[in-house]
């Protein structure tokens, strides 16, 4: 606080010094990345990354590639929407990947068909109880219930025992993964109803991801909930003194994150037509990385859902770009790591620059 009080009241206002929205820089990074892949493709492969070069397909852009770019990040993107809110509120959620695993197993058990090719479903969990061929709303509600419960435990632990979010959600990460394995003793759960399978079909994951992103961007900007997220993340003491009920708010934030992770589980298991206990491993880190690349500050208070969506697109472009350049998947992982650290370094650097200019 002291370093910013520098003599003059600083009343002169230079409109040019007005900072760009942080999302603009992230978007710029996305564009640059696309241009790089386009350039490399044109020079070394004689092919275009972005544009349609095939004569048997109409359209200016390579639509198949554009679809894949966003489709492959949609499911983790849904998780990232929740993780973004948690980080803005000054926390962290390591449990989302495991919540995906546990929720996928449990929800899929309520979405199975009774008979496969005329024989009883060999994978059905509740065949004896007759809980098969249930309407699609049942597994979806079961999933939301799982996410809600996990978020409630996370949030209550953090709000009432005051243990660091890192530890609380680490505990949930291990526990939820255990639940995922215990649920069917490690067996995959398969053969969902047509209704359940429709949730993850085609471009549905993209539609669900973007709808949720728009919804939560509006919530973060225009509602009391969003305002308090930013307030708690930037100065928890100030928020407390202003009369914000910190504990309730934190619980709500983790519950929302849990529910979003469980929705991701529904989409993922529906898309794959099966649920396995290993589903969603490392998703929590990918989601955090998307948020961080999208300009969400790990120290809380700064960032937006829009930023995270752009961050997820950067992820998608990198994966597609590497495939396009016919590079091994190993390199993707390596480069992903570098980009995550690079994004944080750049953000710090930008913040310091802004503080100097202010």
């Amino acid at each position: 606080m002291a370093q910013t009080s520098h003599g003059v009241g600083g009343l002169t206002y230079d409109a040019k010094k007005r900072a760009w929205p942080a999302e603009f820089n992230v978007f710029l990074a996305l564009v640059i990345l696309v241009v790089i892949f386009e350039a490399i493709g044109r020079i070394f492969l004689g092919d275009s990354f972005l544009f349609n070069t095939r004569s048997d397909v109409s359209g200016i852009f390579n639509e198949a590639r554009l679809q894949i770019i966003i489709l492959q990040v949609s499911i983790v993107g849904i998780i990232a929407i929740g993780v973004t809110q948690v980080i803005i509120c000054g926390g962290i959620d390591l449990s989302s990947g495991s919540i995906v695993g546990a929720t996928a197993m449990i929800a899929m058990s309520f979405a199975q068909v009774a008979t496969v090719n005329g024989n009883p479903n060999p994978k059905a969990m509740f065949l004896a109880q007759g809980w098969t061929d249930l309407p699609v709303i049942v597994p979806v509600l079961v999933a939301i219930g799982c996410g809600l419960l996990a978020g409630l435990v996370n949030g209550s632990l953090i709000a009432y025992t005051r243990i660091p979010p890192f530890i609380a959600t680490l505990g949930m990460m291990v526990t939820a993964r255990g639940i995922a394995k215990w649920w069917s003793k490690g067996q995959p759960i398969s053969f969902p109803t047509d209704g359940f399978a429709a949730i993850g079909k085609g471009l549905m994951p993209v539609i669900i991801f973007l709808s949720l992103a728009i919804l939560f961007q509006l919530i973060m900007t225009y509602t009391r909930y969003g305002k308090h997220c930013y307030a708690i993340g930037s100065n928890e003491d100030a928020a407390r003194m202003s009369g914000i009920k910190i504990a309730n708010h934190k619980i709500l934030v983790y519950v929302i994150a849990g529910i979003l992770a469980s929705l991701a589980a529904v989409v993922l298991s529906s898309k794959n037509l099966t649920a396995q206990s290993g589903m969603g491993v490392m998703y929590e880190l990918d989601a955090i990385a998307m948020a961080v690349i999208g300009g969400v500050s790990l120290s809380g208070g700064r960032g937006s859902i829009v930023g995270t969506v752009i961050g997820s697109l950067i992820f998608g472009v990198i994966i597609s770009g590497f495939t396009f350049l016919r590079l091994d998947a190993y390199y993707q992982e390596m480069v992903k790591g570098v980009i995550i650290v690079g994004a944080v370094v750049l953000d710090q650097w930008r913040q310091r620059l802004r503080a100097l200019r202010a």
Partner: protein
Amino acid sequence: MSDIVLKTENLTKRYGGVHALEGANFELRKGEHVAIMGDNGAGKSTFVRQITAVEQRTSGKVWFDGKEVNFTGPIEARTAGIETVFQNLALADDLDVPSNLFLGREKVLFNLGPFSILDRKYMRKATEAALVRTAVKIPNLSNTIRHMSGGQRQCVAIARTATFASKLIIMDEPTAALGVQETAQVENIIRTLKDNGEPLILISHNMRQVFDLCDRIVVFRRGRIVANLRKENTDGQDIVSYITGAKTGEAELAA
């Protein structure tokens, strides 16, 4: 009694065996600006913390706005109309000016519980009005607090107290961390509050500032009020004598 905004009787606070505040009798009238002075640990901040209910008093009575009050917490005190500018500002760095002014008491367009839609237009207008009323100059309301100077931050914190119909403003060393020009800016705001007839308790170590801005000076020493003087009837030398203990005994207000 009717024009008395705040009155305390035998206000006492003990932390275990430490008598931080002993039998403080204090009165504040409408439109009056009173300075509280004293050495470090003399009980100034303790006194304020009892009034704003940040801490619960050991004994004594407090009247506010004509009624005897027993606030259970600072939020209750604030709801009743006591606005405090804390030493550590209590602003959220990443929010803009209107959001900070309305933090924790946002104006809502539709009530949907936590997801209530904010009335951003109203809050922005009210912020502008508050800034005009307190003569605070902030170049760009949508800038976050993070990018403001110490003086501007302090101004926002003070403007916050003026946004709501506060009946009493308490400032705990509002210029302690500020430069010369920023201090002048904050002092101007305090003068504006005086012109608007808003009562104020100002904790300060700055003798010139106190004589410039306040009508009355109350000196604390070792947890007791040792002097209560109109500024016309005293001078810096006199006050220092009370602060250091060179002069003792309760100096009564010469009416």
